[in-house]
C-alpha cells in the first residue's frame, strides 16, 4: 500500500461537497450537532469515530435520506437545506451500505445493470417490445457493466443470484452497483466490515483504483485504522455527533481529543 503523504497532491481539486453546521436529531437524541467539513474533488476522505458517533447518519444526510433540522449542504456549487434521495442520485452521489443492501432476488449482473437505471431513458413503448432502441440501449449499458465486472474481477459470478454469494463478493458486487452509476462522489459505509485480511487488501486496492482511474471522489467510513490511515487523504473524526478533529491522517493520529475518544480519559 501507498505511504500516506501529507502534501496535497495535484489530483485533488476544488471543494466538491461542503457540509456546514449540520445538526440532526431524532426526538431527544442528537445524532449530529453542528458538524462542518468539506470534501474536495478527487480525494479520498475518511469519516471515523467510535460506535454511535453519527458517521452513518452523516452519510444519510449527504445523500438525502435524512433531512437535518439545521445546516446547509453544498454539492457542486448548489446549496440546499434538504435533498431528496433521487436528486442526490441524479447529481452523481452513489452509496454502498454497512450491511449489504443488494437486491437479493437478482443476479449480480442484474444488480449492476440496475445501477444504470438513471442513465437509461428509452420510453415505455419500446420497452414493451424489447426491440430497436430498447435493445440497443440494453446492449450499450451491458458493455459498460461488463467493464465494471472486469474491473472488479467478478466475471464468473455474473449469473449467480447475489443471495447465494459469500459476503466478500457481495460487498464487491455492491461496489460494482454503485460504480455503475458513474458517480462523482462515492460514499462507502464500512466497505471492509467483516472481511479477512486478504479481502481487505483487495477492497483497498479497488478503492484506490476507482479513485485513480475514474477520478471518483470517495468518502468512506471505516473502523480499521490501518486501512483508514493508508487510504485516505484527509480524515474527519466524529464523537457523539460532534466533530473533534479534521486533517491529514498524521495530524489526526496525534490529536489528543481523538486519542481520548478512542482510548478513554483517565479520571
Amino acid at each position, binding site marked *: 500500500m501507498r505511504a500516506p503523504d501529507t502534501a496535497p497532491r495535484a489530483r485533488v481539486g476544488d471543494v466538491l461537497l461542503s457540509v456546514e453546521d449540520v445538526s440532526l436529531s431524532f426526538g431527544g437524541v442528537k445524532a449530529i450537532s453542528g458538524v462542518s467539513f468539506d470534501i474536495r474533488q478527487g480525494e479520498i476522505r475518511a469519516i471515523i469515530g467510535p460506535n454511535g458517533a453519527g458517521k452513518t447518519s452523516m452519510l444519510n444526510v449527504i*445523500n438525502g*435520506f435524512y433531512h437535518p433540522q439545521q445546516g446547509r449542504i453544498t454539492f457542486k456549487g448548489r446549496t440546499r437545506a434538504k435533498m431528496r*434521495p*433521487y436528486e*442526490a*442520485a*441524479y447529481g452523481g452521489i*452513489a*452509496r454502498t*451500505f454497512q450491511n449489504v*443492501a*443488494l*437486491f*437479493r*432476488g*437478482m443476479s449480480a449482473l*442484474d444488480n449492476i*445493470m*440496475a*445501477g*444504470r*437505471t*438513471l442513465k*437509461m431513458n*428509452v420510453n*415505455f413503448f419500446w*420497452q*414493451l*417490445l*424489447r426491440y430497436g432502441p*430498447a*435493445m440497443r*440501449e*440494453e*446492449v450499450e449499458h*451491458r*458493455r459498460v457493466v*461488463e467493464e465494471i465486472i472486469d474491473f472488479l474481477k467478478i466475471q464468473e459470478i455474473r449469473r449467480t443470484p447475489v443471495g447465494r454469494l459469500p459476503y466478500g463478493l457481495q460487498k464487491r458486487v455492491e461496489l460494482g*452497483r454503485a460504480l455503475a*452509476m458513474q458517480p462523482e462522489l462515492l460514499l462507502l459505509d464500512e466497505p471492509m466490515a467483516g472481511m479477512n485480511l486478504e479481502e481487505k487488501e483487495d477492497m483497498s486496492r479497488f478503492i484506490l483504483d476507482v479513485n485513480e482511474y475514474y477520478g471518483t471522489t470517495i468518502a468512506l467510513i471505516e473502523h480499521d485504522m490501518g486501512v483508514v490511515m493508508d487510504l485516505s487523504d484527509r480524515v474527519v473524526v466524529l464523537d457523539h455527533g460532534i466533530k473533534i478533529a479534521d486533517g491529514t491522517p498524521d495530524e489526526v493520529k496525534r490529536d489528543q481529543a481523538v486519542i481520548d475518544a478512542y482510548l478513554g480519559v483517565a479520571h
Partner: protein
Amino acid sequence: MFYREAGQFKTSYASDQAIFPILQDRIGIAVILVAAFSLPLYANDFILNAVMIPFLIFALASIGLNLLTGYTGQLSLGTGAFMGVGAYACYKLTSIWPDVNIIVWVICSGFFAAGVGAIFGLPSLRIKGFYLAIATLAAQFFLEWCFIRIAWLYNYNISGAIEVPQRTVLGVIVTGPRATSETRYIVVLAIVVAMTWIASNLMHGRIGRTWMAVRDMDIAAELMGIRLLPTKLMAFAVSSFYCGVAGALMVFLWYGGAEPAVFNINQSFTILFMIIIGGLGSLLGAYLGAALIYILPIVLRFVPEWLGIPIHAATVEHITFMIVGVLIVFFLIVEPAGLARLWSIGKQKLRVWPFPY
C-alpha cells in the same frame, strides 16, 4: 444430456441478453405454441370451453398479480375487483359503441382497470406487506359495491347482471351465445400469448429491474435514483391492466354473462393462491399455478371414470378437494418458492445429467 448449452457460444451481448438464450428452450416454446394454436383441430368442446379458456384467463390474471406481488413486492387483495373493472368497462364500451371491434374494447378495458388500480395503489407509498393487502381490500369492497349499486354499469338490467351481446370480428362471431368455442379459444390464446410476451419483455429490461429493486431493497433503490411512488404506481397500473383484460375475457369469452359476485374476494384469493403455488416473480409460475389450481381438480374428477371405479359423483367431488389440498401442501413443503423454482431446479439437473453436479 439433451438439455445442455454446450457449443452454443454467445458472440454478442444482444444474444446473451435474449429471453431464451438456450436453443432447446426456444424449440420447446415453439412446440408449445404450435400445439396450443392447433389444439382446436383435435380437442373437443369440453376441453376448449371448460379447461383451456378458463386456464388461460386465470393464467393472465395471475401474471397480472405476479407483476405486482411477485416482481414489485406489493401484496394486493384487489385482483377480483380490478378484473371486474375490466369486465364492466368492456361491457359499457361495447354498449355505447357497438360497431367497434370487440377485441379493441377488451384491450381498452384494461386501461380503465389500470387507472383504477393506480388510484388504489396510492397507499403503497406509506404501507407495505399485510397492511397494504388490507388497504387494497378497500378497493375490493368499494368496487364490488359499485358493481351492485351503480345500475348504469349493467345498463339498468333488472337482474343486476350483465349479458354479453353478440359481436363479430371480420364476419366471425366472437362473443355471445352463438360464438363457437374454437373461435373464442383462439382469441383468448392470442391475447394471452401476446400479453405474456410483453410482460416478459418488460421484466427483462430496465422496468423489470427497477420493480425488482423496489421489491428486494427499497431504500437502496431510492438512493440509486429510483423514485418509489411512480415505480409502485406503474406496477399497480400495469398489473391492473392485465387483471382488467383477464376480467373482460372472463365475462365476454368464457362466462357470457356475469353477476357482481363473480368478482368478489374469493376471486382475489384464488389468483393469489395461484401465484404463491406457481412461484412469485415468475411468469411460468403464473401458468403452473393456474394449471394446478384450476385444471388439476377437473382432471381428478375424471380419474375414477377412466379407471372404471364406480363412485358417486358427490364423493368424487369431496375426494378431489382433499387430494388438491394435500398436493398444495406437498408442493409447498417440497419447494416453498413455488412450482417455477421446482422447474428451474429440474432444468439444472437435466443440464448436468447423468452426473449429480
